[in-house]
């Protein structure tokens, strides 16, 4: 089965682990991921003021391309891409002015006929036909967690893992509708489905510091520290994320965190797809564990905690 | 200058009281209107409106309580639905729908009532007299009933 997949820029450069593990895991579920032809950056930030609506052009172009290729669903794993694509899609569906203006921007895009190589313009208006789903949502609603469970090859034996939602998966709820912002369950259900034990801790929806880590690293250091500390205090052996930026703030910058907060001994950071791929029997070499600053190898040892089933 | 005849159906609880208040406040407006007091704006049947046009009204005005304030719980919502639909029908009958106006005027809004009377008279004045063939049409419909 083919499924449109929008990886986003970071997955092709700094977070290839997320990309590779996603692909490998989906193969095991007999799903072939197809990237929309000529996709571009989604813009990373959904434009929050009325005058910046040109920022909707990039995500809408991507979604329109999915539609042109006959797709009715596109999945993402990066939380930033997810939020931008989903919110842009909703804006086009619900705001006639945005619909009109964005389609006017995009009408003159060049269309190339596959067969004749003829170049023309004139796309039909994009009306929000494509459904944007996060991979977690896709697994829950389309594949079904019981189906995932039935295909597991390795037993994670209730490895205690802290799910980390961060900001962009949950908020604004009115537009994303993935889960309740202060009482979410989706990630926990996923972790239980792949054989882990979801650790409950109060910082799962707190911000990691996001892009402020570039302009004011100290603030992000503290924000990330609070999340990691809370996860660890509640017994997590690792924290899982969906977003490459959360990964960067918590994994790549964990040395800085340890330097600032001497009481913190460290905590591995994983992409959720690494756990999924591993549980589905993907080879350890294909999990991209080399990208981690905080070693996470020990969580993926064949024995004695895990074993490959027939 | 053409002076239109305006027929007003005013609900007893709000708009008719507002019309009284315009009087006690000695507000002046042009004397084009004649009023009929009904218990609720929802008492006004489209037939009454057509009949008023047939009998010589150039404009018909309906005044009710503000949404949510109806003395009879929800009569004004019924009026709103009825009049919205009926305006479309009026257009089909060849009567300019602007000749029919529905306003929410509370018992405290004497000023709004006086202003509405002037504004509506002005509007109907601009539209001119209801033309004969329109009247013929109106009477046709009324007979069909």
């Amino acid at each position: 089965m083919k499924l449109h997949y929008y990886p986003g820029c970071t997955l092709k450069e700094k977070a290839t682990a997320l990309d590779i593990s996603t692909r490998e895991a989906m193969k095991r579920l007999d799903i072939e991921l197809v990237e929309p032809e000529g996709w571009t950056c989604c813009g990373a930030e959904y434009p929050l003021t009325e005058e910046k609506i040109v920022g909707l052009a990039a995500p809408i172009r991507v979604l329109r391309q999915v539609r042109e290729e006959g797709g009715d669903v596109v999945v993402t794993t990066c939380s930033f891409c997810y939020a931008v694509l989903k919110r842009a899609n909703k804006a086009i569906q619900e705001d006639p002015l945005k619909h009109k203006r964005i389609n006017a921007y995009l009408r003159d895009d060049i269309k190339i006929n596959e067969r004749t190589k003829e170049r023309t313009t004139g796309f039909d208006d994009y009306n929000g036909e494509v459904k944007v789903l996060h991979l977690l949502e896709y697994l829950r609603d389309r594949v079904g967690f019981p189906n995932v469970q039935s295909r597991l090859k390795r037993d994670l034996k209730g490895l205690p893992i802290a799910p980390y939602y961060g900001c962009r998966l949950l908020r604004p709820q009115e537009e994303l509708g993935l889960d309740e912002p202060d009482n979410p369950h989706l990630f926990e259900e996923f972790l239980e489905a792949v054989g882990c034990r979801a650790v409950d801790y109060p910082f799962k929806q707190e911000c990691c510091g996001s892009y402020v880590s570039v302009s004011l690293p100290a603030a992000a250091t503290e924000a990330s520290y609070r999340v990691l500390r809370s996860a660890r205090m509640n017994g997590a052996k690792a924290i899982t994320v969906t977003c490459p930026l959360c990964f960067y703030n918590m994994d790549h910058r964990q040395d800085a965190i340890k330097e600032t907060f001497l009481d913190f001994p460290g905590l591995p950071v994983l992409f959720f797809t690494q756990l999924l791929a591993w549980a589905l029997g993907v080879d350890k070499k294909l999990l991209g564990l080399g990208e981690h600053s905080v070693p996470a190898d020990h969580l993926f040892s064949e024995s004695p905690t895990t074993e490959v089933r027939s | 200058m053409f002076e239109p005849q305006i027929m007003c159906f005013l609900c007893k609880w709000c708009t008719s009281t507002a019309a009284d208040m315009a009087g006690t406040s000695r507000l002046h407006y042009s004397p084009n209107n004649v009023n009929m007091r009904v218990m609720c704006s929802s008492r006004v049947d489209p037939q009454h409106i057509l009949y008023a046009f047939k009998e010589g009204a150039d404009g018909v005005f309906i005044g009710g309580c503000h949404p949510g304030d109806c003395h009879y719980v929800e009569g004004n919502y019924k009026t709103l639905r009825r009049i919205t639909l009926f305006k479309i029908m009026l257009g089909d009958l060849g009567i300019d729908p602007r000749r029919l106006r529905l306003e929410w005027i509370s018992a405290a809004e004497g000023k709004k009532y006086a202003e509405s009377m002037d504004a509506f008279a002005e509007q109907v004045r601009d539209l001119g007299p209801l033309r004969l063939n329109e009247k013929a049409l109106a009477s046709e419909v009324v007979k069909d009933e």
Partner: protein
Amino acid sequence: MTAKTTSKTKDKRIGLFVCHCGINIASIVDVEKVAEVMKDYPGVNFSTDYVYMCSDPGQQMIIDTIKKKHLDGIIVAACSPTLHEKTFQEAARLAGLNPYQIEIANIREQDSWVHTDKAKATKKAIKIVKSHVAKALQNENLEPIKVDVTKRALVIGGGISGLQAALDIADHGYEVILVEKNPSIGGKMIQLSETFPTLDCSQCILTPKMVEVSRHPRIKLLTYHEVDSVSGFVGNFKVRIRKKPRYVDETLCNLCGECEKVCPQIVPDEFNMGLSFRKAIYMPFPQAIPGTYTLDAEHCLGLNPVRCGKCKDVCQKKAIDYDMKETIIEEEVGAIVVATGYDLYTMQALGEYGGEKYEDVVNGLEFERILSASGPTGGAVRRPSDGKVPKSIVFVQCSGSRDTEKHNPYCSKICCMYTAKHAMLYKHRVPDGQATVFYIDVRTGGKGFDEFYQRAVEEDKILYIRGKVSKIFKEGDKLIVWGVDTLTGKKVEVEADMVVLAMAMVKADGVMDLLRKLKVSTDIHGFLAEAHPKLRPVESLSAGFYLAGCAHGPKDIPEAVAQASAAAAKVGDLFAQKELVHEPTVVPVNDELCSGCGICIAVCPYGARSLDPERGVAVVNEILCEGCGACAAACPSGAAQQRNQTDNQIFSMLTAMLRE
């Protein structure tokens, strides 16, 4: 469809009386001319003008003329009917004329006072008068509709509001049926510890009232009963009441308590808000009325002597009967007081405060039980998780209130006061403890309320922080509260041992089903809607229903009691009448024209119309009809005609006014 007067009305003799109102009318409207012109108008038999029609000589002139000229109807062209319609109706009645034959033509407020052009104003006055003549020619003699009143009241709800309403009505001398769904009366108030602003013990002031209700000769107390359905109308309701099986004969039970001792089933205790346990056979609380045990079938092992039967075995009075069945009682009443109370908004909705995940985050009612001498801790402040005495408690006001976005937009009104009380009582019991209150505003409108709040701050040194808490979470055995002090602009964090959320008051659980059966309307939050927010605050829009207490909206005890007494007084008003009198200008059905389409039934806001299944026509309950006329306008066949404002009358008036 044409507007013709019937031959009968042609013979009517109409009199016209045009008032000068001093110069109020006469300076703009040529009143003599109006009277003169109308002399020859069809149907007008007499026409005159006079300087003050409402004066005694003016009224006498009307009376004399009606008699002398044998008038069948009169028009008084004068001021607005809101001023003197009653005056002239009374005059007509004295002259032997049916008051519904009086027409008031408003030529003052809607003519002379608003226009300046004399000729136009006079012309308009003539049109107005003509229209009323056209109407008067078709007016019928009407008599007010009368119906008997059953002088018994039903009170639904046995909380403080229901108890007060029942007592007052019974003291007025009328019989009352008080229905309470729980095993005992007492409601929420019996669960409270001490009451603001006087700190008197809630149980101490309520139990005497409960006893009084149970002993009152005119009150029939039906606990563990629910209202099943209501039919009929004001003064004449038929009520079906469902008696839930208690499985204990309350007349036999002597409260020996042996059954409770042997019962193996342990259930969270509702009276203590689940902070302690009871047995499946239980007495809700020691002062419960009626004083009897109740067997909770939901938690009992199965009402089957083979499976358990221990309680039955030990009951010496043979009061326990597993075969008790639900029964239906029918009662006739004339008025119904709805006092169904409230519940607290669920903490589950507040995920950021843990959403019931943390045992030591409790709601206001749970804290009342913790403070109460009859509560699970005997009045000692101990936290639920481990029984430790909390050294720091954070109180969060407006939890779920004043939140237009996700929760309840309204202010729950009593939380400011009970939070001050909670913090104060806590400090009295744990003097070295820290009480911190997060608030947005402190609202203390009420007698002695602000003084009470100031005492809490000044004498008990309770720290009030102006800001709303964003998040509460657990770290170790502490609860971390994230708030802000907007007065200093500082983000604050408090380590607390316990948190009390002043949860919003919401409609009682499951009350909507009942309210739908009663056909009483509510606001969008499910609180009962009053007939008028200012002038009829204790009556429902549906005649014969009265509101009391928090079923109508958040309120404190004195306010609930006042409203209950007011509702009782209103019931007294109703019962003081020999018979009910109702405006006869209703909308009856002409059976010959009615096709039974049912449109009028759907538009009626009062449920006054229904379909007669045998004859296939609409029928009207004239007592319920308020005469708005919406059905008359909606009726496609003209079968629904409003008395004295028929379509024909309206058409005639339009012709009279508009045809040049």
